[in-house]
């Protein structure tokens, strides 16, 4: 299939330029470093931007202005906040398990950093294109819960421990729903490779092509992903009115910032995954056979499409947080095990039947 913007040309030319003058080992090392730097920068900037965005969205919902002093429209506010956090003392509670205490934020942030490399941002614009991309992202993101559990356990604080235990129960439960709702599209597209899933949506996004079950899977994915990222009405792990700040009660300075950034990047990841799998990833929006309209849509660069869709999903997830009260821990688990999981299983059977009969577009 031919695409107007193909970034594999760019990446291949960089690769060939390096390969022409260096030995294969050095090419490999330099490419690793380049990709790492690009993703670290991307991660930091996007994380800070998401924090800013959340504050503005929340202010918009709550009848106020939000940050609007530092820089135009206050966009440098989060950078100023980060600088402040960098200069804060790194405080360790007495009798805390120092090694685990220091390790926990890194585990959390590495888990989310590893996952964003596998997302295809445009044709040929991804760090790794594994043939089990969906599986990889699910596996890596669930590592984050280890960090949260460690943080709660090692803090030597009762609130932290309660928060961590809640988080453990919650993330492990909702992992199932996330996986099963993604399975819906894997059945449709017949592949776990994210780039293949995106390209299978060239003639229509799965949320439209897959009849009602795909839409249903999308809704379940949104709910479960919100829960898995410890956000919105499911932020029990850090329920501030109950547990002060939950698992990161005792963290200060940049360690706290790590948890904070990781939370926002997990939200981005959930939204990006929803976009890639259900909303056509970087595919432009095509409307049946209106070739003029479709042609104009093709001209919009794919990463604009990708980020546009992702931010719409992020906005929806943010709306959840600022409008709903928090669930209780037993209600949270009831929702998953009694409602979402059985419905999801049923949904998958329906989808399998649809695919078997070839009823999807």
């Amino acid at each position: 299939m031919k695409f107007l913007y193909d970034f594999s040309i760019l990446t291949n030319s960089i690769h060939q330029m390096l390969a022409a003058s260096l030995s294969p080992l050095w090419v490999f090392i330099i490419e690793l470093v380049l990709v790492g730097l690009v993703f670290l920068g991307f991660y930091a900037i996007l994380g800070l931007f998401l924090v800013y965005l959340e504050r503005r969205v929340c202010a918009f919902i709550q009848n106020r202005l939000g940050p609007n002093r530092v820089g135009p429209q206050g966009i440098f506010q989060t950078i100023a906040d980060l600088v402040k956090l960098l200069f804060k003392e790194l405080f360790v509670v007495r009798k805390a398990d120092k090694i685990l205490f220091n390790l926990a934020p890194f585990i959390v942030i590495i888990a989310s950093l590893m996952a964003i490399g596998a997302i295809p941002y445009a044709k040929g614009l991804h760090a790794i294109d594994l043939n089990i991309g969906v599986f990889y992202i699910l596996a890596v993101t669930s590592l984050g819960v280890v960090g949260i559990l460690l943080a709660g356990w090692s803090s030597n604080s009762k609130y932290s421990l309660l928060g961590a235990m809640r988080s453990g129960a919650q993330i492990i439960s909702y992992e199932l729903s996330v996986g099963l709702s993604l399975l819906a599209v894997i059945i449709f597209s017949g592949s776990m490779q994210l780039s293949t899933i995106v390209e299978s949506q060239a003639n229509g996004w799965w949320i439209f092509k897959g009849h009602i079950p795909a839409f249903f899977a999308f809704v379940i994915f949104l709910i479960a992903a919100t829960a898995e990222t410890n956000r919105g009405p499911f932020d029990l792990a850090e329920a501030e009115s109950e547990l002060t700040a939950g698992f990161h009660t005792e963290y200060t300075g940049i360690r706290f910032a790590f948890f904070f950034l990781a939370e926002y990047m997990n939200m981005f990841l959930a939204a990006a995954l929803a976009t890639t799998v259900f909303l056509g990833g970087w595919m432009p929006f095509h409307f049946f056979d209106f070739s003029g309209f479709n042609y104009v849509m093709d001209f919009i660069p794919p990463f604009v499409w990708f980020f546009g869709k992702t931010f719409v999903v992020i906005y929806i997830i943010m709306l959840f947080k600022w409008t709903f009260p928090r669930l209780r821990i037993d209600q949270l688990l009831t929702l998953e095990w009694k409602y979402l999981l059985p419905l999801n299983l049923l949904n998958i059977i329906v989808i399998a039947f649809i695919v078997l009969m070839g009823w999807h577009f």
Partner: protein
Amino acid sequence: MVEKREIILGENEPYVINMGPQHPSTHGVLRFELSLKGETVFKVVPHCGYIHRGIEKMCESNTYQQIIHLTDRMDYLSAHPNNEAVSLCVEKALGIEVPERVKVIRTILSELGRLASHQLWWCAFGMDLGALTTFFYGLRDREKILDIFEESFGSRLLHSYICPGGLMNDVHPNFKQRIKDFIPYFRKKLPEYDQLLSGNVIFKERSRGIGMLSLEDAISYGVTGPSGRGSGFSCDIRKSQPYSAYDRVDFKEILFTEGDTYARYRVRIAEMWESMKILEQLVDQIPDGDYTAKMKPIIKLPEGEYYQSVETARGELGVYIVSKGDKFPVRVKFRTPNFSNLFAINHMAVGHKIADLVAISGSLDLVIPDIDR
């Protein structure tokens, strides 16, 4: 000599958490000592006294005009009824009849204070349940009331405006018009409260059947105010012993019989509608006249014991004054609503989760300085 010992949590030991004195959802410096089993609360011991200022003792060395200023500091979110309680008690002791204008204005102020207090309660209750947006919606409307207060008395929270004999000074000329503007405004905004929180499925799940308080328990714990009326305890002083201008206004005493957190929530929302009804009836009927009765500069109560209770936004506030004919009282006792309401929490919260404890203490509308005095 302090013995050093290692504390090991055993299987059967309770997991004790100190919730407070610094905690976001105790609304002040209150400490709950929670014994937990996992997430389930099986004992709550409230510890109060962190903000004890000895107001009752201080009253013994202050004149009756000065006591007014101390009462503001008890229930600072609805300060007018506190002032009113002492003023009414002193007036009763002296046998003074205050002018009609004073009575009507006092009633209006009490109801405005009740509205402002319930609005803030609604904000904080939403926050307790994790709905952070409620805070700004409630404060938006509360600001309008505080502006009315500020214009007339120069202060927004601690007014000290109602004093023995009448009012400190006359209300601002804009007072009437401001209230007239506020009522239609808030009539439009109050349904937003329902849209944002009352109808929410998660909110209903979180509050229905949580913190059950039966009528018998409400009476035996002395839970009054909206918290008591949520259990069907008809305890509205405005109805049973009308004071000021409450005998001439038409309003309903809101009663719900469920006795859970949701019932207490609905009582307060319904009370806001009733308060607006009272305001509407009274705002056009403020008679002309003096803003205070003729009072001697030094008030000396005749020897005896006097009691007067009023309905604040949180329940029955009683003032008990013992006088020996001096300009200072011998003993002053405040029966504050929150103190009684607070100690029902162990009864209500046992067997529920921590999150429910927060919801329950939110639904009691605790103001900590009112508990500790």
